[in-house]
């Protein structure tokens, strides 16, 4: 199953959440974290990895997609993006075609493909969301983040046929996250006719900031911290959806 982690506004915590969610799920599921910010890698930086082969070699030099996959060292695998490769920031349709076929192939080998998308609502961000079965939209409790989250959901649902959304509050207390969810969902419901599923809130946690400086996932050394506990809970919330999807896949083919 493919899930995109996305936000509209940048810097709300997609990559740090994605890395920790991958870790939270990886003992039970085969997880591949795809750095979907193709031309501006951020997953490998966050984990201080130095991949030799990246999506750049796959899309521009015809290497197999599997040759680019690396182990994170924390139980899940990573498909790294390139750093500062302009052609990949907005890949053309041929590259996207090749990438889609590759990702679909990987989807058979992993239980879960997580796309850590870039910021904004650029065509490539929309494209990854369209490919995913679910779009997990992160927001923080501030007006610009909420507006951007709404705008992204609107474009995806109206023009791209994406109807399956998860909402997740980051850097918000449980109560705050929930209040924003209730209000945001009311607007989404009224204007877009959708009811996104609430996954919970991840609090603002200095331990998480420290983990970023250490370039290690928070869950790998401080599982008892507040943010880590919240992310583990989100993982639990998600599990029923994986089962549903695998049933659906079995019926389909």
């Amino acid at each position: 199953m493919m899930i995109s982690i996305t936000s509209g506004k940048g810097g709300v915590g997609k990559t740090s959440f994605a890395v920790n969610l991958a870790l939270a799920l990886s003992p039970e599921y085969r997880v591949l974290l795809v750095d979907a910010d193709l031309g501006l890698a951020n997953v490998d930086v966050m984990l201080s990895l130095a991949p030799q082969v990246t999506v750049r070699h796959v899309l521009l030099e015809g290497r197999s997609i599997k040759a680019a996959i690396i182990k994170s060292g924390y139980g899940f695998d990573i498909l790294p993006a390139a750093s500062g490769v302009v052609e990949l920031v907005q890949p053309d349709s041929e590259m996207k075609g090749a990438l889609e076929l590759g990702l679909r192939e990987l989807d058979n080998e992993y239980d879960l493909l997580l796309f850590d998308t870039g910021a904004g609502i650029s065509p490539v961000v929309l494209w990854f969301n369209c490919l995913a079965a679910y779009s997990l939209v992160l927001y923080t409790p501030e007006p610009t983040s909420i507006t951007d989250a709404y705008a992204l959901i609107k474009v995806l649902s109206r023009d791209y046929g994406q109807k399956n959304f998860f909402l997740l509050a980051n850097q918000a207390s449980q109560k705050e996250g929930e209040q924003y969810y209730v209000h945001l969902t009311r607007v989404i419901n009224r204007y877009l006719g959708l009811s996104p599923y609430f996954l919970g809130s991840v609090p603002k946690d200095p331990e998480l900031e420290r983990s970023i400086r250490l370039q290690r996932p928070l869950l790998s050394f401080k599982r008892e911290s507040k943010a880590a506990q919240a992310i583990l809970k989100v993982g639990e919330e998600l599990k029923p959806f994986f089962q549903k999807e695998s049933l659906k896949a079995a019926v389909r083919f």
Partner: protein
Amino acid sequence: MEIERKLREIEAFLEAKTQKNLSKGELWIHLEELYQLCKELYEQASIDFLTGLYNRRFFEKELELCVERAKRERCVFSLILMDLDHFKSINDRFGHLAGDEVLKGVGKLIRESIRKVDIPARYGGEEFAILLPGTSFEGAFSAAWRLKKKLREYQFGTEEKPIRVTASIGVGTYRPLNGTSAQEFLSEIDALLYQAKEKGRDLIMPERESPTEDKALEGISFEERQALKGVWSYDDKHY
């Protein structure tokens, strides 16, 4: 089942033929039966016997199913329609047998260029259709592009009498939210194929990027903005 019974009868008849001397009348009856049987099987078949691809009937049923599934499960699928260019002149210049060989060859090229889950069909005389479940526009476009390239590079016929073929192609993606019917969707792609012919053949329509990407992002309306304001101006005392 009727067909099974008939088959057994004919089998028994064939076994008996060495022992009995059958009258002409009996022979005719069995021949008639054999003909009916073939016809029935032919009508029920889902395969196009020349190319080994699915036939038009099966394709149309599958298309309906894809549309239903897309609506129910929110998944997209794509369709490629492809028509060989100037096929009549191939038949005229090289004969119908050579024409049939080309059709067979195209069938083989199609099968080699698609995934297991895709559904390739011979839709009409020299028209082919491919259903690509769960595939968005970019994936379908790149599949069509590769197929077109392979086709124009391939040499049909013999060394002495090589035959070159090109094709015009229409590609589109079904998006459940527009609520179009299978028939409407098919006509849309057929119109694109027609455009490709009009524009000079050996082309894919639409010409490049996904049509949804051209659409400017209109952003959000004033009303929506007002409603969103309520999201952050809520008051704690409500809780």
